[in-house]
């Protein structure tokens, strides 16, 4: 029983990591209809920023969350203006290929700058709190979970309460109608993209003490974000929480109960979840801003 509760705790902690990871991806897709294939690469950039801060300034990854947010948000704003805006009204595949190009560029730019070595970030929030002899809470992941929940609440309030948040939701629901009532769609998209990239960068900074930082860590993360979004529904903030927890717990159970190879099987699990969710329940388990219309033609 204690092994099971340990796996459950690990899974929830891992789910926190996935929650902060998936929010940006899900909202960009839900609001702008752009599948951000470079999502994992933006996470990686955030992780490298945190690593640089740690290496040069000795700063803890949890302390650089805000600077990383603003750097990536500025980057996102510029990228939206010069590139994403051009493809947003075009078919999905154009934006998909363009973001694929961005991901190749970022991977190799980071490889040129930092080499392909695996980097690891340190944090003082390390170790484990033991609850009993065989059950303990991994501190770093637990802290990430807390930050992720704080971001989730803040984001939810922002989308529900503020005027900008409301116009973002309006743009997601009906672009034309939003335009008619006087919402500046381009501005809304720029803000959305900046906000989401900022959150994605924060995710990178937070997971840098957990996963090794390296230029090619992106694609599996993108795949996981995709799987969670397919489960939780596009742009659904609450759904993201559910989907992230489901994936985290499944992965933790696999890691615990399947000897040695369980961690590698995690990627396989995300893939199975992804296809199953797209085929069986395209609207997501928790309902979203709009359905993932995967089999409609």
């Amino acid at each position, binding site marked *: 029983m204690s092994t099971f509760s340990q796996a459950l705790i690990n899974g929830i902690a891992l789910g926190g990591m996935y929650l902060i990871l998936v929010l940006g991806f899900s909202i960009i897709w839900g609001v702008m209809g752009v599948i951000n294939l470079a999502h994992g690469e933006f996470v990686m950039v955030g992780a490298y920023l945190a690593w640089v801060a740690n290496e040069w300034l000795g700063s803890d990854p949890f302390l650089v969350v805000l600077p990383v947010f603003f750097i990536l948000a500025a980057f996102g704003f510029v990228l939206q203006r010069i590139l994403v805006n051009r493809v947003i009204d075009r*078919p999905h595949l154009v934006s998909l290929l363009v973001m694929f*190009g961005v991901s190749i560029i970022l991977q190799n730019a980071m490889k040129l700058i930092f080499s392909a070595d695996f980097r690891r970030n340190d944090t003082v929030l390390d170790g484990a709190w033991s609850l009993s002899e065989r059950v303990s809470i991994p501190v770093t992941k637990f802290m990430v979970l807390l930050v992720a929940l704080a971001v989730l609440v803040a984001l939810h309030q922002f989308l529900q309460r503020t005027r900008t948040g409301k116009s973002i939701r309006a743009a997601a629901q*009906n*672009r034309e109608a939003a335009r008619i009532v006087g919402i500046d769609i381009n501005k809304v998209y720029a803000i959305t993209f900046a906000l989401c990239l900022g959150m994605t960068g924060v995710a990178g900074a937070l997971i840098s003490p957990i996963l090794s930082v390296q230029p090619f860590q992106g694609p599996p993360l993108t795949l996981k974000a*995709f799987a969670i979004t397919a489960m939780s529904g596009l742009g659904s903030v609450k759904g993201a929480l559910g989907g992230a927890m489901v994936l985290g717990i499944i992965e933790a159970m696999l890691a615990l109960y399947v000897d040695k*190879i369980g961690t*590698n099987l995690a990627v396989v699990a995300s893939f199975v979840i992804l296809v199953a969710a*797209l085929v069986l329940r395209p609207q997501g388990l928790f309902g979203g801003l*709009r359905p993932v219309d995967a089999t*409609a033609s």
Partner: protein
Amino acid sequence: MGILGSIAVFVGVAAAIALTLVGLALIPQRVRRMVGIGLGAVILVGLIVLPLLEHTTNSELFTLTLLLTTVGVSINWNLTGGFTGYVDFGHAVWFGIGAYVTGILMSLQTNGLGIGWPFVPSLIVASGVAAVMAALIGRATMRLKGPYFSIAMLGTFVAMREIVRVSEPLTGGGVGLTLPPYQNRPLFYYVQLGLVVALLLFTWWLRGTRFGSTLVAIREDELGAEMRGINTTRNKVAVFTFSGFSTGLFGGLWAYQNTFIDPDIAFVEVRTIDAVMGTMLGGLGTVTGPVVGSAFLFLLRELIWANFLDWHLLIQGLLLIGIVLFLPKGMIGVLDPRTTSISSLWSKYFGSETVDVHTGTSVMDALEDDDTTAMAVSADEVAVSAEAEGGQ
């Protein structure tokens, strides 16, 4: 060759290609076809004679063999991505499966699991396995449309690499497998040259058959094709299976020549990227486009980017964005009225129509009746053209 020398050679090649394309665009279509065939024949004779020349080294032959591999994979990718319109972002998975099954069968002895197989039977079984996997996976993933199919295939690719990595007793895990060494560069060169030519002729023939027209009909209007009684699933999966089979073949050939495979070199994203980019540069859904485009990209990399090896993927990413935004029809595509551009391909699935959040239905549904009529009409045209072309 120094950097300047290789740049000069490349600029020469590029200028020659550009002049040829402009020249071809200026002459009437019937003459153009004859000139095209003539050019192809000259290049083919050149490629056949090349190994017989005195100063051709083995390493140059190996480079050309790799070029032929890239071209072959691009032709296969074009069968699903270009003809059927199902853009596969994980095509390299079939290459990896072909390479790995070949490797596993040939190195059974060293792994202590039995007697190692000879190469040819291993290769046949390997492509067979790739075909069966493509048929099984295709049946699930080809139900998804547009970007969802692309992502599901990307997932297949990433997942398969991990499966190979964890199946350690069979695949050697992350350490990889060493195949019995055998070096005969000219033999493999000719085998692959023959394969690529056969594949090209096959594609050309296929495009004219009823099956080929069916594939294009699926790309242009899948629902319409279905309404005309075409079993779209069977046709899609059939071409996907062939594509997997053929790519698996190239994978097995590559594995034997490379004599070493591990998950990270057998399942490498670059192979998919090369196929997608080569095909798009040449012209999506054209017969010769993938050959021209991917050969061009390969030479570009060998001649220029070899001097900036670290930069080449970065440049490739920029180039991909450039092609998508500014040359959506590709080099051959601008010459051929029958092709499609990537943007027209997806607009019918995911046009800029807006979706109502509560019902999940499209605003366009109000016009449903008109849409259905339009759909039936276009389906009619597709069927008529399929019959006309099938009868040729």
